[in-house]
C-alpha cells in the first residue's frame, strides 16, 4: 500500500518505507529488493511548508524535501563546499528529483548489497557476513571501522558535516533538533545500518547554526571528488575542505562506512604538517584495508587540490 499523508504528524503514524524523491527507493522496489508499504511524502509540502524551504539568515536551514538542485544557488555562497557538492552529485536529471532527506538517508551502493543474488552474504541486507570483505572491494572503504566495509554514499552528508550541521526530526513524540548530523551516522562500527535514524522517524531538515567564519566576507571552502571520469561517477574519494579562522576542516567520503571528519589530520595540518604527513598520521590511528590502500594517495591528492583551491578567499 502506498499512503500519501499531508502532514508530518500523519506521516509518522504510518508504517512503511518513507519515500521522498524516490530515486533510491523506487530502484530498490523495482528490482525486488524492497517490498512492503510505502509512506510517500509527495503531499507533505502543502501541510508542512518548512519541509520544502531553504532559508538563509545567520545560518542555513534546509527542509528535508528541498531538492538537491535547489542547493545550486548563489545564496549558498558562504557554504561553497556544500553548493559544489550539490552541483556534482548524481546527474542533472536526478538532482531536481532527489531530496536533501533522501540524499542523506539513501542506501549505500555496495555491489553485493544491491545484487539480487548475493544478499545472503551481506550484513546490511540481513545476511550473515560480508561478501565484499572476502571478495571484490576495490572501491570500498579505506578505513576498516566495523564488519561492513562499504563506503557511505552521501555526498551531501560529507559536505554538511564539514559545516557542523545539525538535523531535525519528527516522530510520535513531536519535533526536535536531534543533534549533530555526524551523530546520525555513528562511527562506522554498526554493520547493519547506513544511518541511525530510527524507523518511523521523519527527518525534517538540516541546519547550519554556526555562521561561516570569518564573519566578514566568505570563508573559503570547496568540494571535489576523485573519479575516473569527469561527471556522474560515484567517487573513489570525496571531500570538503574548509579554512576557518580556528583551523582547517577535512570532511571526507568514500573512505569509511560513514562520512568522516579527519580530526587527527586536521590537527596535524594546523600545526604545520604537510598534507601527506597529516594524512599519514590519520591513517596511523586507523585500521587500513589492503586492497584500498591506494585511497591514501588519492586522499592526499584530493586534499592538496582543495587546499590549493581554497588558498585565497574568493
Amino acid at each position, binding site marked *: 500500500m502506498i499512503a*500519501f499523508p499531508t502532514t508530518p504528524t500523519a506521516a509518522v503514524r504510518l508504517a512503511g518505507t518513507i519515500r521522498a524523491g524516490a530515486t533510491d527507493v523506487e530502484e530498490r522496489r523495482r528490482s525486488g529488493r524492497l517490498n512492503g508499504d510505502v509512506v510517500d511524502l509527495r503531499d507533505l509540502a502543502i501541510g508542512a511548508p518548512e519541509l520544502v524551504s531553504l532559508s538563509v539568515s545567520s545560518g542555513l536551514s534546509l527542509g528535508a524535501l528541498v531538492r538537491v538542485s535547489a542547493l545550486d544557488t548563489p545564496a549558498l555562497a558562504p557554504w561553497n563546499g556544500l553548493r559544489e557538492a550539490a552541483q556534482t552529485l548524481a546527474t542533472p536529471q536526478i538532482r531536481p528529483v532527489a531530496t536533501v532527506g533522501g540524499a542523506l538517508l539513501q542506501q549505500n551502493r555496495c555491489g553485493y548489497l544491491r545484487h539480487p543474488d548475493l544478499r545472503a552474504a551481506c550484513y546490511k541486507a540481513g545476511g550473515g557476513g560480508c561478501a565484499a570483505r572476502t571478495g571484490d572491494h576495490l572501491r570500498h572503504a579505506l578505513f576498516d571501522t566495523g564488519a561492513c566495509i562499504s563506503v557511505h554514499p552521501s555526498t551531501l552528508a560529507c559536505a554538511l558535516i564539514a559545516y557542523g550541521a545539525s538535523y531535525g526530526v519528527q516522530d510520535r513524540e513531536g519535533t526536535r533538533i536531534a543533534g549533530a548530523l555526524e551523530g546520525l551516522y555513528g562511527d562506522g562500527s554498526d554493520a547493519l545500518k547506513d544511518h541511525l535514524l530510527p524507523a518511523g522517524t521523519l527527518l525534517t531538515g538540516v541546519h547550519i547554526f554556526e555562521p561561516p567564519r570569518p564573519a566578514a566576507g566568505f570563508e573559503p571552502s570547496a568540494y571535489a571528488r576523485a573519479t575516473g571520469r*569527469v561527471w556522474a561517477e560515484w567517487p573513489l574519494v570525496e571531500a570538503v575542505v574548509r579554512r576557518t579562522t580556528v583551523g582547517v576542516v577535512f570532511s571526507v567520503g568514500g573512505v569509511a562506512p560513514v562520512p568522516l571528519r579527519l580530526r587527527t589530520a586536521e590537527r596535524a595540518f594546523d600545526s604545520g604538517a604537510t598534507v601527506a604527513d597529516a594524512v599519514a598520521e590519520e591513517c596511523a590511528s586507523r585500521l587500513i584495508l589492503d586492497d584500498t590502500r591506494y585511497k591514501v594517495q588519492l586522499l592526499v591528492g584530493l586534499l592538496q587540490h582543495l587546499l590549493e583551491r581554497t588558498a585565497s578567499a574568493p
Partner: protein
Amino acid sequence: MIRERLGLTGAKEACGHGACGACTVLIDGVPEVACIKPASHLEGRDVRTIEALSGAQPAGPVDLSLLHPVQRAFLAEDALQCGYCTPGFVVEAIAYYRSWRAAHQDGEAPPLPDVERALSGHLCRCGAYEAIRVAVQGACAGAFEGPLAAAPPRVDGPEKVCGRAKYTVDIDVPAMAEAAFVRTPVAAATLTGIDARAARAIPGVLGVLRLVDDGAMLRHAAQAVAIVVAETRDIAKKAARAVEVAVTRGPVACDMRSARAPGAPRIYVRRGKLPVSSEMPVIPAGWHGNERGPLRSDIGEHGGQARKATASPAMSGVWTTSAQCHTALEPHACIARWEGGTLTVWASTQMVRGLAEELADRLDLPLAHVRVLAEHVGGAFGAKAAWDPHVGFIADAARQLAVPVRYVPDRHEELMLGGYRPPQEIAVSVAMAGNAMSGISMETRGDSGVAVGANVGAIMRLRYPNVPKYLADYDVVTHAPAARPFRGPGGPPGYFALEGAVDQVAGNLGLSPVDLRRGHDPAPGFQRLYDWAGRLPVWHQLSEINRGSGRYRVGVGLGTASWYHFVAAGAEVELIADASGFHVRTACQDMGNGTRTALAQAVGDALGVDPSTVLVEIGDSGFVPGPMSAGSRTTVSVRPAVFDAAGPLKSALVQFGSQALKLVGATAGVGGIAHAGGFVPWAQVLAVGPNTTAVGKRKVDPAGYAIPLAIGGTAIGRHCSAAIQISRVRVDTWLGRVTVQDVWAGFSVGTVHSPVIARSQAVGGIIQSLGYALHEERRLDPSTGALLSYNLEDYHLPGIAETPSVEVWFDDTPIEGLATGGIGLSEVTTCGGAASIANAVYRATGWRPMDLPIRPDRLLAGLATLAKPPPAPAEAPPDVPWGTS
C-alpha cells in the same frame, strides 16, 4: 509507464536506474529521468516527451521544418548513430537551449565544458558525443532556427531525432505477454531442483517453463533455468524471483588465474560443441586442463625465426586487459508470435537473415515460415551477430502458451550475458637487429568464459609484414558467460600489447617510434598515413618522454592497426522501380552503422538520383538475402550488389521508356534516359512504366579474394585497412586521472562513399577504445562468479566529458581491384586507440601502463614505481616545454 500506458515510445529505457538518461522527459519544463519515477509523482504535472517536442508532425515522412532547432542541429551534424540515446539527449538539449537562449544573443555559443556538464547525465554507447557537442553549441547560437541547407546526411536521422524510429522494444504486438528468466545465482552449480509453485500462484502468470533438467551443470552464474511468462513485465519479474532454484555448488574459477591454478576445477569434463566467441572459424587444438592451444597464426618459417630471434629480446613484457561489455543501449530484446505454423520474430539483431535461418534450422521449419524483423537496432557492436539462446526459448514459450511473448533483458542481464570482449593476457618479446625489428613473439591467453575463440594472432599477423612473428593463442575456459565478437575482435588487446612493446623498444633504444614503425610498413596505405601525420604539429612530440615533475603531465602517443577486408560473398539486393520512385530492398539491418544511408547513396550513385528520394527497405528476413552486419562488411557488400542490379534495371527502363515515350537513340544517362531529342528523367519514365525490379549480387572483387573460398558466406578480400591514431593525454598525478585531450586519427580504407557517416563511425570506434583503455571493466565476484558491475553506474562507459577533440583523416585513395574501391571501416577505427592512449601515458610520465583499464589506482601505483625518475637524456632539458602545466 509513459511508454507502456501512453504508447509514447520515444523515451527509451536503457538502464532502468537513473544512470543513462535515455528515458529523460520534461516534467514542468525540467528534464528528469522517467525510469525510476513513481506514476503517482506525475499526477497534475506537465509531462513532455520527445513526441511532444517535435512539432505537430504529420503521418508519413518527418517534416523537418516543424522540428525543434536542436533536432535540426542533431541531423545536420550527424549527432547520432543507432539513435537509441537520441531522444533523451534531444530532450535535455532542448531544455538547455531554452535556458541558454533566454540569456544570450544569436551567435553566442555556450562553452564546451558548459554543454558537457548539462549533458553529463546521458550515455551514448555509439560514441556520438563529439557531434552532439557541436550540434548543441550550434543550436544554442541560433544556427538552426531556419531550414537546413542540405538534406541530413543520415537517411533515417529524421525519424530518430523525433522518437519515431521503432526499435524492437517499441513494437506492440496485440495480446503480447512478457517473459522473465529464472537464473542460477552462482556459477559452477549443479541444478537439484526448481520449485515454481509460488510463482505459478501469482495472478497474471501464464506459465513457468523449465529449461534445464535436474543434474544439469550450470557453468556460469545467471544461466537460465526456467522462463516465466506473465501478463506484464513486472509480474513476470516478480514471479521469476519467486521461483526457488536449488543447486549444489562447486568451486568457482571465473578468471584465468584461478582456472589455470593447480587443482583448478575443470570447467568442462566432457567437451561437446563449445560456444564460440570469434567471428573466425575455430580451428581444433589440444587441451591441457582448462587451457586449449596453441593456435598458431604465424606464417611459414616466420614462427621459428621469430622464436630464435626473441630468445634474446630487446624487451619483453606481459600485457593484460579486462572484459569490455558491448552493452548496446538497446538490449537484446525479442518478440515471438506464431500464426499457425509460421513464426514472426522481432529481434534486436545484426543478422535478420542469419537469425531466420538459425530459427528455421533449430525449430525444423521451412525458411519461408520464419520471418525476422528488425526495423531499427539500438547498437550491437558484434554482440547481436550470433545465436542467442533466449530467442529460441521465447519462440518455444510462445508456441507452448499460444500467445505472442516478448522478452526485454534488463541492464543486469545485458551486462552479464549480452557479450563482452574476452580479457587477455599477452606476453610479447621484440628482438632488434640494429635499428630494425628482427622478430616478434606473442603468446596470448584469452578468457571467453565458457566459450572458445579469443584469437589475437590472426589479426597480429597483418602487422609489420616483414618482421618474422611467432603468434600463439591459447583459450582458457572459465566459469564466466560466453564472450562474443566485439568490434575488431582480437584487435584492441593485441595492438595494445604489440604497439606497447614496439613503443617501449623505441623508448629504450632512444629511437623515434615513428621511424621504427615506418621502416616495417611498406604498404602504401601506411606510408600515406605517416605522410599525413608527419604534417601534424604534434608529430615531433611523439618521440619525447616527459620528465616533468608537476601535477599535470602531457604526452603524445601513437598506435597503429590493420584489419581485414571482409565481404559477404553473394549478398543480394533488390532494386524496384515503380510510380512512387526507386526502392531498394535487402535482408540487412542498420544498427547505427548507416546501412540505410549506404544503400540510398549507392542507388543514388548508380542511377544518378537524389539519395534522399530512395526508399530503403531493410530489417526483414523476407527480402532477398543481404549481409549480416559484422566484420565491417555491410557497405562493401551491398554497394556492388546495388550496382549489379542497377545495370539490368536501367536497361529494362530504357527499353520500356523508349517504346512508351517514343524515344530515338535512347541510352541510360545519369538520372534518366538520354536520347536523340534530349533527356528524360527517370521520374517521367517511372510515371508511365510498369513496376520493374532487378536483383543484384555481390560478386567477387576484380582482384579476387585472398582466400578463394567464402567460409560461412564470408570471403576475405585482398588488401587490408590501415589506421594510425595519435592521442594527446594529460595525466593528473594527484588524482590518478588520464584525460585524452586530442586525437588525430588517419584511416586508409580506400574510397569512402559517405564521408559524414564514416566520420561518425570512426569517432565512435575511437570513443569505444577510449573506454576500453581507461574506464570499462567488467567485475565478477570471485567466489560466486556473479556480476558486480551490473549497472551503468558501476560499468563505466565513457561520457561526453571524456570525449576528446578528434580530427579524422581519410586517405580516400581508391584501392585498385576492389569492387567499391574500398574496405570496411568500422573495426579498424577501434583497434589502435588503447595502444595510442597507453603509449601517450608512457610518454607523459615515463611509466608504461601494462594493464587495462588504466584506473586511478593503477596509475598512482605505476607512478609510485617512478619514485626516482630515470635520468634525462644528456642534451634534453629536464622539463619539455609542452609537458607540464
